[in-house]
């Protein structure tokens, strides 16, 4: 096949396309590009300086800041466990809701409800429920006679992060569930019927039909969920504010503190840049998949 000759003029059609995307490009630049550029610039500026000279000192400081490494570690722990649990719980609920049972519409709505609550609000609600002396969780444990102690769910350094993760699983699984449920419904029933005729067990059906056909949906859900979980803020902010000590201090929270509480704008910017790079690397497979699809 012959290659088309190189063109130096854009066609009518292309021009029209550019014209149509121009307003949204402008908006994108204004609300994303501009602040991003400022953040990157800030991160290379000395702390508390009025004059913008170039320096790497914020990044050097970052490497030596044990609280930053602590925050990074906790972030990975938090993101890893919440994404995994969102997937496990989301898949289980999706499979259950995909069964042709009575009231499945009603149950689906119920299962989505936690996702409709803003994460700030769910943080507040869970904090009340976890309260050692007046919270409903300890109250239930006391009433059922399981324990008589005031368990300090959010105050104990070993319990705080798992408690926060538990709340986040409740808050976040519906998103994964919705995507997977949509994927499940797209699998033709004939596959299962054929498998049954061949004598496949339900487990085999799940392993050899459901999972492979759902793979793409799982990747999409996990990738999006991972990106979102890296930015999770409101829930932890309202439940523990990073405490006790620094036991639940995820990176977004530490950045917030450096920026808005300690006013170290430049240092916080350097951290934000690092976080953005991590998120970019993690979202690459997802982006590549989306690009390949086109």
């Amino acid at each position: 096949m012959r290659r088309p000759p190189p063109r130096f003029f854009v066609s009518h059609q292309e021009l029209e396309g550019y014209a149509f995307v121009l307003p949204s490009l402008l908006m994108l630049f204004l609300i994303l590009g501009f602040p991003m550029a400022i953040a990157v610039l800030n991160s290379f500026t000395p702390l508390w300086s009025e004059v913008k000279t170039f320096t790497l000192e914020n990044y050097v400081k970052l490497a030596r800041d044990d609280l930053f490494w602590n925050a990074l570690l906790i972030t990975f722990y938090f993101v890893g466990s919440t994404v995994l649990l969102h997937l496990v719980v989301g898949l289980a609920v999706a499979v259950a809701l995909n069964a042709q049972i009575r009231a499945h519409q009603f149950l689906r709505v119920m299962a989505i409800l936690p996702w409709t609550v803003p994460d700030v609000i769910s943080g507040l609600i869970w904090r009340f429920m976890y309260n050692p002396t007046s919270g409903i969780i300890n109250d239930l444990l006391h009433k059922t006679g399981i324990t008589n102690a005031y368990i300090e769910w959010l105050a104990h350094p070993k319990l705080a992060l798992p408690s926060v993760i538990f709340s986040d699983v409740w808050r976040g699984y519906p998103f994964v569930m919705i995507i997977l449920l949509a994927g499940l419904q797209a699998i033709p029933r004939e596959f299962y019927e054929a498998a049954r005729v061949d004598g496949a067990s339900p487990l085999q059906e799940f392993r050899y039909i459901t999972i492979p056909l759902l793979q793409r949906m799982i990747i999409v859900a996990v990738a999006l969920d991972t990106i979102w979980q890296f930015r999770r803020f409101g829930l932890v902010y309202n439940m523990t504010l990073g405490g006790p000590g620094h036991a639940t201090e995820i990176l977004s929270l530490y950045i917030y503190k450096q920026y808005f509480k300690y006013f170290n704008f430049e240092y916080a910017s350097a951290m934000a840049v690092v976080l953005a790079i991590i998120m970019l690397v993690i979202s690459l497979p997802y982006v590549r998949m989306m690009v390949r699809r086109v």
Partner: protein
Amino acid sequence: MNKRLLNLLLVVVMLAVWVPTALAAPPVQEKGQDYIVVADDWLSKLADKYLGNPFDYPAIVEYTNKKHAEDASYAKITNPDLIEVGWKIYIPSAEEAAAIAPAPPPAAVTLVFGDWHLTEPHWEKALKEAFEIFEAKHPNIHIELDYVSYADKETKYTTEIEAGVGPDVFHLHGYSLKSFIEKGYLYDITPFIEAEAGVYGGDFLTPWYPQTLELMQKDGRYYAMPGDFMSMVLFYNKNLFTEAGLDPTKPPTTWDEFVDYAKKLTRDRDGDGQTDTWGFGTVGAIDPGFELRFTPILFSHGGAYLTPDNKCAALNSAEAKEAFKFFVELVTVHGVVPPGVTAQNPGTVRQQMANEQIAMLLGSGWTPPIVDKNNPDLKAFEVLEAAPVPVKAGLKPEFSTTAWISAWMINRNTKHPKEAWELVKFITSKEMEQKWFDDANVLSSRRDVSGGLEAQGVKGYDKLLNDKFAKVIAAELAHAKFVPQLKEWPQIIEAVNAAAQEGFTGAKSPEKALEDAYNRINEILSVYRAAGETCPAF
């Protein structure tokens, strides 16, 4: 025209609408002229066309009538709403019109006022009343309220001021004042202060406690005016004292006594086998309120946060170590604090007081009214008592407590600095500070309100000095020291705050937690040390 081109045109037109177009100023005539009225003319339309302002039509009336007196060919306008076609009128030049225009009234100004007090109904009411008085005195100034929560105020103000906006006048506490000054967020009010008249034989600032004024300055320039000023004292519930067999007229004076009392007050009052009342409640959450509750304990043990030159942490002193250990062990060893201390903020501790879950707390003037509001059945004003903060046995430290201070400031972005200063001056006036005490039990940084100018023959506010809580708080102001004032302070106190949490939860021993905080603070302060200058090991 094909459809595609039409679409393109549409987009171009849309873009054109987006681009802000500067309105061309109407051509203003330089010379006056005669004018014959035609159909569809009316005066304000002509004034707009020739003078650039429709409200200048009275000038046309006035000049035309003046001409009519000399020359009858000009019309006489008796009713500006009625002109006839064919009339000859005179439209003056813009300059002539300006000459007869009445002096404009002071331009109406709207000041935006930001304060976390607005989110608390009884404070909001008091402020609104004050602004009514202010607006009556300054009819051209209108105050618009900008509500912000205590925890979010720095976030909100920082974001807004960085963006070139924000309230004109706002209220902050001492905790972040230094950072705001250093960041250049505040308007330099020194010229306004210098222009004001003096009082009590001194200058305008004479009424204020000198230590409060010190905090408002940088390099001899003022950036804020002191507001509330209150020392931290011990509040206790005298009914719970009596129930526990303690004498309510003899509050603890040393920390040893305090622990004894607190243990006796920690009890199972309803007999279900579970402790339901504790001796002491305190803030253990990461919260700005932590500083005010821990500092009195540190100071009354003779400890300090930093060395006097602010170059190193001073938490390695025996006094500081003892104070920190004492604070942590109230929870871990003595068990006199309700479970969940690391989640307690000032509001929840006051709620515990209101519910009779705790018998003692460290607080100040704001404590009784809020406790009372949280549970009116308690009758807080009657049941609560105030006493000085206990000290370490055998020690008589110069400073045994700390003080809360707030400040009023003007945003550097304000377009109305003069009016903003009027508001700041008003809100910090003696009358308003007295009213603030009447309404909210808050003490002032003015000595002609809270006392301290007796030597100059100036008395404080009677009602305040006879109040059962206020008189204790006012007397303790002399023993109150501020925490170090440097822009890194929020980060430093949070290191101590986190160390306390690590101690409370047993994640680290008190010694280890304090040592880590000590090293972190020294790292933060390294910017103030010359190369080679080091801090001693913990």
